[in-house]
């Protein structure tokens, strides 16, 4: 059990991010989303807790890929939090951070496609793709943006721009970027697990 306290916010954040690095299940992500949200409400000014809370909920949407009925509340929550994170950034300077925010926005919109691709695909699919492109434009070295772009290339039918070869290249690039990245502390650094999983499927 965690109690709110004004001290040791950074340790708390670090501890929660460390937990996030180990998370796998919906329950874990759900709990972490709550943790980050609580930290966000204490910090009031930091974009990161909102970013992480949104990421956890977006991630749940991805885990529920085959359970369309359940996704919407998580997507709604994630969207709300990521918009808050975005509003706390100075978009002219904080390009790297903005790129991370776009990645989560892309994930949220993609999770809305999972609700029922037939009914929501044409509405949210292009939005998700657009956010990935924006994330890459804002920071071409963002491995998470490359991962999402790779995911899109992997999952989209060829006719609509899908390309398995390109997907592999992007994923390998993302992997390389992740491996060469400096220790990020509490800054966004997720992706290794996701990239490896997809590369495995591509084999």
């Amino acid at each position: 059990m965690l109690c709110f306290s004004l001290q040791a916010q950074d340790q708390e954040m670090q501890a929660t991010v460390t937990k996030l690095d180990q998370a796998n299940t919906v329950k874990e992500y759900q709990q972490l989303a709550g943790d980050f949200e609580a930290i966000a409400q204490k910090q009031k000014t930091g974009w990161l807790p909102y970013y992480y809370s949104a990421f956890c909920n977006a991630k749940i949407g991805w885990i529920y890929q085959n359970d369309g009925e359940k996704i919407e509340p998580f997507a709604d929550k994630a969207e709300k939090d990521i918009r808050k994170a975005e509003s706390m950034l100075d978009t002219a300077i904080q390009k790297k951070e903005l790129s991370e925010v776009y990645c989560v926005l892309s994930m949220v919109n993609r999770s809305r496609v999972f609700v029922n691709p037939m009914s929501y695909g044409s509405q949210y699919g292009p939005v998700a793709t657009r956010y990935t492109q924006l994330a890459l434009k804002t920071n071409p070295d963002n491995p998470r943006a490359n991962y999402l772009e790779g995911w899109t290339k992997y999952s989209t039918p060829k006719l609509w721009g899908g390309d398995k070869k390109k997907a592999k290249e992007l994923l390998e690039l993302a992997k390389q970027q992740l491996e060469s990245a400096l220790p990020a502390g509490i800054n966004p650094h997720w992706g290794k697990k996701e990239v490896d999983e997809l590369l495995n499927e591509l084999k």
Partner: protein
Amino acid sequence: MMFPGRNFITTLFFIFDFIAAAAQTRVTGTVKNSNKEVLPGATVRVKGSDKGVYGDSTGSFLLSLSGKGKRILQISSAGYQSSELKVELNDFDIHLDITLKDSAETLGDIVVISVGSFEASDKAKGAALTPIDAVTVAGNGGDIANALRFLPGAQQIGEQDGLFVRGGSSQETKQFVDGALLPSPNFASVPALPQPARLNPFLFKGILFSSGGYSALYGEALSSALILESVDLPDKSSAALHVFPSNVGVGFQELAKDNKSSYGINASYGNEQLYNKIVPQIPDYFKGPEYFSGDGNFRIRTSETGMLKFYCNYSYSNVGMKNPNIDSSSLISSFEQKNTNLYSNLSYRESLGNNWKIDAAIAYNYYRDEMANQLLNEENQQRFLTVYPYSQQNFDSTTNSNFAQARVVLRKQLVHNQAIRFGAEYFYSNEQLSSSYTSGDTISKLHDNLVAVFAEGDIYITKNMAAKLGARAEHSTLLNQSNLAPRISLAYRFPGGGQINMAYGIFYQIPEITYLALNNDLNFTSATHYIINYQKKEGNRFFRMEAYYKTYNRLVTTYPAYSNGGNGYARGVELFWRDKRTFKGVDYWITYTYLDTKRKWLDYPYSIQPSFSTPHTLSVVVKKYFQDINLSANMAYTLATGRPYYDIQTPVYGSPFISDQGTTNIYNVMNVSFAYLFSIFPKWKNKEFSGIGLGCNNIFGTKEVFGYYYSYNGMNKMSVTPPATRSFYIGLFMSFGIDRRNDFINENL
């Protein structure tokens, strides 16, 4: 002691501090969902302060609060509705058992109307149907009604178009577009030759197929209502064309730059002559079949919430065919039909503020049908014979009908997803039937004004239980009769997500014009429906089971005179299972329909199982998209027991009797269709999407017999079969889109 009081004050502070510390209330509790599963990590917060905790992995929390008096606790967890609780702090420990409702478990998702109906909506989640799912069922030939035959409640009737639902004839199912009746959804019916639909199925973003118990907002359909909602503004300007050997078409949609209005025109022409040369047909077609259809539309977003839509469709068909005469082997029956139909629909919807909404529609339909029946000899010369039945086999008949409708519905949304809806509609119909036989001419003119008022309320009972109560009253000037139809449905949602629904309703319908022409003293026919169903959606799977009982009253009988002397019943059980999850990339559904029905109707001498019903129907629909080769494959299969057929003889003196009867063979038909998608100009900025579609109905080539025609004397019978064992199509379609979606997205980032 310089400051004797100081220590005292300090001590007092300590004491107060001690008291304050002691005056802490320990609030403990657990947070669970309505399934009694613990919710780890729920947030428990004191409203108006930053004091809060979250639950541990067992859903338990401990919150120490100081002070006294009332506090409001806010409990939240993603995926659940937040809840607030008042607690009174008075130094005693408080234990709370908190249950959070699933966000998806709000009353809004207890769709009361789901009883008796299948909804294919562009808002469909998980395994619910989308309009695309419905219209891509293999072998439907571009007719929504055909696609819906693969859903529970509908029968597979190969020789006729339309929907035969739960023991009802196809005239007992009505189609509605944006609230207004669509009087003739298919091209004019031709004996034993199902006719295509006039409207393009892609026109609709919402398809609600009710196989019974439908809302009081609709009427004039004894068995079933097919409620269609047309699309709003397109998301881009586009042009499309298709080329099939028997049908070509072009069309475009233009979306205004401000994304606030659009217009479009489509035209298509089909002639089966060429196809019929390649694939031999049983009837000898001397004309067509030929079909022309043209439509125009405009749509205007009149405000943030307002939408005005106009749709107009003109269609023309021309069919001429010869078949062997049933009464004489040396004679030929020739049948020719020209049909013109104009349908237009103007609809408007707007929010009026304060949770009021208005939906209004006006529709107009003109229908003209000219039929010519001729008796020919083997040299194709017309023969006029005075002996019955041949004396009746040379005739011309013309039907002219005008139909207009105006309708307004007001709705108000209330708390807990409750709503009231009420409105009125007016139907005007004017029909003229003229026939000329060798023996003389007959003309009958009929016109009717039918007024209906209706009201319906969605009522919240408990969080898991809701009801819809409605009533509809109608008055027809032609019948000079009124009716009052109550409609009730109930829904109860189980904690696990399953839902049980019940419905009761009375449904009225004016007898068909051909009978009213002979006796306009007829009354409304009626049916009473009782339905119960259970359904559950989870993990991209959908299960539904429905049982029903219905009675028919005052059905039209033709003997001894035209009257409301008929009645009947239908009962059955239906199962539906859809699964988009088990097999990766494969979407399939299975439908089973059991039907037990009998009716005394028309010339039936007593209550018998109608020829358009069979006890058991099993359907399987499978769809798969092969992403790597851009190929979409669809399969639809039906296995149904045989249908009864009768030879009902009506002697000049005496009552009708059944002189011969039987049951047809099992219906066993598999349809397949494929669409291969590609792009001819992939590098072009406005890249086009093209596709080759091909399909085959009844790929196994089973010999289907739908029933028999009997000669006048009952000595000769001729099977009713499809015009060819298999039917095929292959063609190219192309779509050129000026994709403005990116502009739209950029604007909204």
